[in-house]
């Protein structure tokens, strides 16, 4: 049950992020929008890996090695989301450095001021 709420949350964040990318003129806010969408995606990934009433896939006191398969949630989405987070971070970092340089060259943070190339 809980994972359907987090799924909805993730999708909502995703769409909010896209909405921000479509409507905010400020470059940094666009990147923030991207980050929000990215986070939404991560939440979606985790939600998809959740199994009802199960726990983290780590063998310890709570989960014994014998019946681990019946006790744990899907480890794959957890692994994927880690990679996805790091990649999202990397993309965001590069985007932000572009913005820094763009601002230095043009002294503007509005996307509307960067359309000299067209047609």
């Amino acid at each position, binding site marked *: *049950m*809980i*994972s*359907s709420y987090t*799924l*909805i949350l993730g*999708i909502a964040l*995703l*769409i909010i992020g*896209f*909405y921000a990318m*479509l*409507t905010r003129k400020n470059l940094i806010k666009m990147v923030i929008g991207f980050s929000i969408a990215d986070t939404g995606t991560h939440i979606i990934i985790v939600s998809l890996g*959740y*199994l*009802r009433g199960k726990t*983290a*896939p*780590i*063998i*310890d006191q709570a989960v014994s*090695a014998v019946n*681990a*398969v*019946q006790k*744990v949630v*899907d*480890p*794959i989405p*957890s*692994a*994927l989301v*880690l*990679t996805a987070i*790091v*990649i999202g*971070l*990397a*993309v965001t*970092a*590069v985007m*932000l*450095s*572009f913005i*820094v*340089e763009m601002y*230095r060259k043009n002294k503007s943070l509005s996307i509307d001021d960067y359309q000299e190339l067209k047609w």
Partner: protein
Amino acid sequence: MIRNMAVLLAVIGLVAMFLPMVTDFQERENLNELAADYVEGSINDLNTPNVVTSVIVTYRGLDTLGEVTVLFLATVGVGLLLKGRKEDMIRISSSELLGTTSSVLVAMIMILGIYIFTHGHLTPGGGFQGGVVIASGFLLMLLSNVNVKMNHSIMHFVESFSGVAYVGIGVAGLVLAIGFLNPGILPLGRFGELFSAGAIPVIYSLIGLKVGSELTSILVTMGGEK
């Protein structure tokens, strides 16, 4: 106006696209075959309590190597873009209180980071988490003390060394064990101990070092030269 309508339509379209995903969503009850194989394999073949770690480091090790590469590329890219940038920023030295407290904290943060990545195969966490913690320690240093200077060459060295060592262990797996990135080059040890699970903790530690140094490097570059 047209634009707003278009944005509205786009958002409605997206909602419509995702709606069936939500309405048809069913929480899963059981692990699928692949995931079950991972859980069993992690316990039986790799001797690794943390299944996520064995997926990350071994089964999907190529992803992880790629992921480290992505982060590395971001570091390099940010460096290419921002290197030699000098900003006219006014920097005020921190108070002694801040400086002293932070240096105590930094040490503890570092130790925590190292703990997290060396115990990645046993407990929640791992190289990435540990690396981020370490980088946060450096961030604290950068923020709290304007005079601190990061040694670029040491950072580059750690970055390069850990990366090459990671690849090297992977190749060792290919040559000595049964495949690229296979951790079987080291003994599997006893289940649940620190020195167990073959090369997994070594790889994860290298990842931790690499992530830590790379993130720090990004932070330093973004902070600009003084």
